[in-house]
């Protein structure tokens, strides 16, 4: 591989607290050789060609902690190849895949399969999770220790929640013994039963069953109370409401845990469901504008650690149904960064913080050496024009499934190219 030289870029690397105009050199091995303002035209060999990135940004490749891939079982929705192409188009170089496949990722041999497929078909880094319980049934624990040895980074039932309190306490104890990361999708099944949208005026008007914000809060309260006694690495996959923010704020000084939020809940609200738009049937549901604002405030108060795409590809047939029959979820990995940049452009969140929640923070929770531009590390990065305007078009979505939640939305900021291990794998 030839050495690559980038100059005059706005470099942003929250892990190393770098926020400056400078250059970046990728060596022959695809590692970062040098970075920062000291890298300029004067100290690179004059015969070498360099790329001038004036007014462009270099970010570490994004780490997306919540991604659904269709392999195995739902290849028609998304496979590793299409997922990695979609991710690269969005500047994402590392993804954490959910275990909600068919069969479920709940045993060592499936992990071998996924690792192999990920290695052969995907151009990005795949970090698979396994389920907390066998076949996602919420009754028997999986083999955390053995699965971890095979390369599982964390445990979650993905779209499912552990309802049984005793089982949850046992999961936490095992996770403590084995230093495993537990990730919970917080939703009380009984309170959320048949629910499709936020329980409020929109649910009442549309005549749809609501999911109360209490359904989320109760599981978070329960888990954080358990955590006081059974301390393990615990992560709330996504929160959606101001009630949950309040709970987290109260517990932050008492126990250690981390929290994620979906870009959908940060950018949209329940009104966007409009006239039964099934692409906006999400879990957790879009809530009120007050809830959305409380989530942004929570990020600015460091109460939320990670922003995820919650990328859930669904084929046309799963969405061309009545709202109650349609599958939940939206395809969003390639619009994660541009949509997040909207929060920078409208002065909601500082750029440095946004990138931190998309790169170094998730890497830290997962204990992986990604999401940074440290010298000697793989050059996983993206080059972004954060001001470039464009319009999301369903038919231009790279992912195999086109169920974007933001069709026709005007955005500002686009990924120009994405590098993994020093190789340019995406270019606009």
């Amino acid at each position: 591989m030839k050495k690559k030289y980038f100059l005059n870029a706005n470099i942003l690397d929250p892990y190393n607290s770098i926020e400056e105009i400078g250059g970046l050199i990728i060596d022959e091995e695809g590692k970062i050789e040098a970075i920062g303002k000291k890298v300029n035209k004067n100290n690179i060999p004059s015969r070498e060609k360099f790329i001038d990135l004036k007014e462009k940004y270099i970010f570490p490749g994004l780490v997306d902690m919540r991604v659904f891939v269709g392999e195995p079982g739902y290849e028609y929705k998304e496979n590793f190849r299409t997922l990695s192409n979609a991710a690269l188009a969005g500047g994402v170089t590392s993804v954490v895949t959910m275990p909600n496949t068919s069969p479920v990722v709940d045993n060592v041999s499936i992990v071998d399969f996924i690792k192999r497929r990920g290695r052969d078909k995907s151009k990005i880094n795949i970090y698979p999770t396994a389920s907390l319980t066998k076949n996602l049934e919420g009754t028997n624990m999986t083999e955390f220790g053995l699965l971890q040895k095979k390369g599982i980074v964390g445990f979650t039932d993905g779209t499912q929640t552990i309802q049984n309190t005793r089982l949850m306490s046992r999961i936490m104890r095992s996770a403590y013994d084995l230093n495993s990361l537990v990730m919970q999708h917080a939703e009380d099944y009984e309170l959320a039963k048949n629910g499709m949208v936020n329980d409020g005026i929109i649910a009442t008007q549309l005549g749809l069953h609501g999911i109360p914000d209490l359904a989320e809060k109760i599981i978070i309260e329960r888990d954080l109370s358990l955590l006081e006694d059974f301390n393990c690495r615990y992560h709330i996959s996504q929160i959606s409401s101001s009630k949950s923010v309040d709970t987290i704020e109260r517990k932050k000084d008492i126990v250690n845990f981390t929290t994620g939020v979906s870009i959908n809940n940060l950018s949209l609200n329940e009104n966007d469901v409009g006239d039964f738009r099934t692409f906006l049937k999400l879990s957790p549901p879009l809530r009120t504008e007050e809830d959305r604002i409380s989530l942004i405030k929570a990020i600015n108060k460091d109460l939320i650690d990670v922003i995820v795409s919650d990328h859930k590809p669904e084929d046309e047939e799963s969405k061309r149904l009545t709202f109650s029959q349609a599958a939940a979820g939206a395809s969003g990995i390639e619009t994660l960064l541009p949509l997040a940049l909207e929060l920078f452009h409208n002065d909601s969140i500082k750029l440095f913080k946004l990138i931190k929640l998309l790169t170094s923070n998730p890497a830290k929770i997962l204990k992986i050496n990604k999401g940074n531009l440290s010298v000697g590390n793989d050059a996983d990065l993206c080059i972004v024009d954060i001001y470039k305007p464009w319009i999301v078009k369903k038919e231009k979505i790279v992912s195999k499934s086109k169920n974007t939640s933001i069709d026709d939305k005007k955005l500002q900021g686009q990924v120009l190219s994405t590098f993994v291990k020093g190789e340019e794998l995406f270019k606009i």
Partner: protein
Amino acid sequence: MATSFKKAVKISQKNLLGIQDLSISDINVILDDAKQFISLNKSKNKKLDILRGKTQINLFFEPSTRTQSSFELAGKRLGADVMSMNIVNSAIKKGETLIDTAMTLNAMHPDIIVIRHQDSGACNLLSQKVNCAVINAGDGRREHPTQALLDALTIIDRKKKIQGLKIAICGDILHSRVARSNIYLLNMLGAELNIVAPSNLMPKDIDKLGVNKFSDMKKGLKDCDIVMMLRLQNERMTSSFLSSNREYYEYYGLTPDKLSYAKDDALIMHPGPMNRGIEIDTKLADDINKSVIKEQVELGVAVRMACLKIFCE
């Protein structure tokens, strides 16, 4: 018939999916048009040819007696060719999706489709996929616009107005599309609305629709001109909402005692079918001086004739 029937005035909507989409003038157009059919329906020769050559398809995914027969009669009296799909024997049972059913029917060039479906928003989805007009005959818990229109027509027929009346809607509001459509419509026409229900059957944030909420029925009925009772929809209740029908009747069933809090000339309405002895005392339901339940059914045909006529054009 010697009577000359008015030509329908243009209406703002292509479909009748819900009262929410209509303007006050749309509503008045429909109600005015319906009035002329009331006497026709009482006469000996009920047949007109306004919709001759038009095809009406009734697509009922949920069981229905009065609404389906009402729409069928309405279409036939206007001279349309009416086909009621039998869902039990149809391809839907073989797993066909609503959109595919819609496209199949659309290929047969109907002029109007009347749909009832258990899912809220099903009629909206259907209307996006067919060229003809769609009339919602009830979707999930969202809307049942023709029921609200016939209720309004009944009230106007008896009270001569709606503006300024105090109307109580009582019972299972949570599962009721009739309640929602009536709230939008009666609000628009200037009534004051009291919504009476046990908290477990009260939809979230319903007061944001501009109504008063009551869980005490006597307070809710105070000085009302109209008491509209709703059916307890036990078939839609997935878990425990109420302790028992007996207790429900005690606190939320319409009895002479509770009715005495309303105005002396208050009228009782019910969209049917009734659970006698659960939400309404059986004698009150049949009291011809107070109950207008039969009139509602009668005027239902007139309202549906008006809707078919207006939306077919």
